[in-house]
């Protein structure tokens, strides 16, 4: 009875402050899912940190070897998978050789999913890329940063064979590759530990390799100090980084289309924050008076 009386006494603003969170969930669900049905491609400028990643690939000559470390799992897939696909497209378009590895057990599988997607492109299909010659998947090895460190001496110390069990000495692409000295660029796609920070500390600082990174939006800000010091060539941060890379590549794909959804969701959250603050000040004013 008392509760009912208290409920009746609540003003509109107070009710708004204690709004059922399921209503917020509903708004967010609509804001995220509805834009996905519209194939809207939003234009946005390419930020310098993303442009640097693009430039690093462009500077490489055909036949150069690129190492891509997949250090994430499906939970970070919406942000990192579009980056992986775009990066593969860029490498294969420029006739670069791609070596794939993973410090996370699910990483090499994520790479296979990205490859499967990229191989559907007509221009990539026309190149008739072959496993072991144009790309290779070394798989996963347990050991986190120690794997990175040992690869600096010899890849075979961390990966005696690829994910299919073929010894590296029998893979044509790996014949000229001993350590990081034979790699022209490394891209680390990371969602946590082990990830970009470990690659910077154990590969860049010790073996002076050229490293670029693709990170989740949560992780990307912690990489900015490494860009300023030159330890990282560039960073693709979150879905926005992926979308900008697609724009730089002049091939808008999934990240660009997802950005519309993310933009609307951000707008709705901002709207909720404004409403929450108006309600907060209005109810406080009432209490003071």
């Amino acid at each position, binding site marked *: 009875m008392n509760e009912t009386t208290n409920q009746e006494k609540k003003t509109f603003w107070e009710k708004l402050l204690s709004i059922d969170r399921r209503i917020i969930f509903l708004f967010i669900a609509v804001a995220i899912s509805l834009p996905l049905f519209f194939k809207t491609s939003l234009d946005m400028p390419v930020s310098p940190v993303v442009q640097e990643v693009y430039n690093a690939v462009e500077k490489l000559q055909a036949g150069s070897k690129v190492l891509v470390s997949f250090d994430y799992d499906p*939970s970070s897939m919406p942000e990192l998978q579009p980056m992986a696909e775009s990066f593969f497209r860029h490498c294969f378009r420029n006739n670069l050789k791609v070596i794939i590895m993973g410090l996370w057990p699910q990483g090499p*599988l994520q790479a*296979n999913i990205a490859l499967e997607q990229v191989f559907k492109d007509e221009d990539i299909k026309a190149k008739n890329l072959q496993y072991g010659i144009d790309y290779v*998947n070394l798989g996963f090895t347990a050991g986190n940063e120690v794997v990175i460190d040992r690869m600096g001496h010899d890849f075979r110390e961390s990966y005696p064979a690829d994910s299919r069990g073929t010894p590296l000495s029998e893979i044509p692409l790996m014949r000229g590759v001993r350590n990081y000295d034979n790699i022209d660029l490394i891209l680390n796609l990371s969602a946590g530990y082990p990830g970009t920070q470990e690659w910077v500390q154990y590969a860049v600082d010790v073996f002076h390799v050229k490293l670029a990174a693709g990170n989740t939006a949560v992780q990307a800000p912690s990489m900015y*100090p490494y860009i300023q010091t030159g330890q990282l060539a560039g960073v693709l941060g979150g879905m926005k980084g992926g979308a900008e890379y697609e724009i730089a590549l002049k091939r808008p794909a999934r990240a660009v289309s997802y950005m519309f959804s993310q933009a609307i969701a951000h707008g709705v959250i901002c709207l909720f924050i404004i409403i*929450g603050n108006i309600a907060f*000040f209005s109810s406080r004013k009432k209490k003071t008076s």
Partner: protein
Amino acid sequence: MRREVPLVLTAIVGITMIIAHFIPPLNILKNLFEDWFFIIAAFAIYLGILNLILINGDKIYKKQKGWPFGVVVILGFLVITVIGIFFSGGKSFQDPGTPFYYIYMNLYYPLSATMFALLAFFVASASYRAFRARNVEATMLLGAAFILMLGRVPIGYWISTWLGHTLANAADWIMDFPQLAGQRAIMIGIALGVVSSALRVILGLERAYSAGE
């Protein structure tokens, strides 16, 4: 002996790893210790599997609360392992077209992505309740969050176009200066903490890792 051996081993390995960075001939020892690490890391996976089966097996045996979930965990583990090892048709179990790949794509992949996607809803709800301009610090945090949330998406870029790109520029400024300075301070703090913790472990002052002392 139970206490001394781990302490001596830790001290020898720790000191060798530090010195080997500056004296290359000691890399032979460093490599040996790293080999040990690889072996232990590989065994840790088997230990994890054993732990998973023991904990869930015990839960099922004692019919503890939520025991059916234990059955799902053990069944899921066994089914995926058996399919991955024995039913890959001569291919690597990770290759497209294998039953393992099918399970990964149609079960693990959406389940894992869904769990993480739920964060969006909680973040929105938490933002509504927590981002209040209660005092100066909270207002600054709110302002920075607001600028970044709008300035980092295309909607913010459009709004910013009408305002002479001030919103996007402000977002970039926050990322390039205050955020970067804060990150660097945190990183230096963490690094100093790691160095002191590592020295305490190497010198035997910190023994929490051995037998819970």
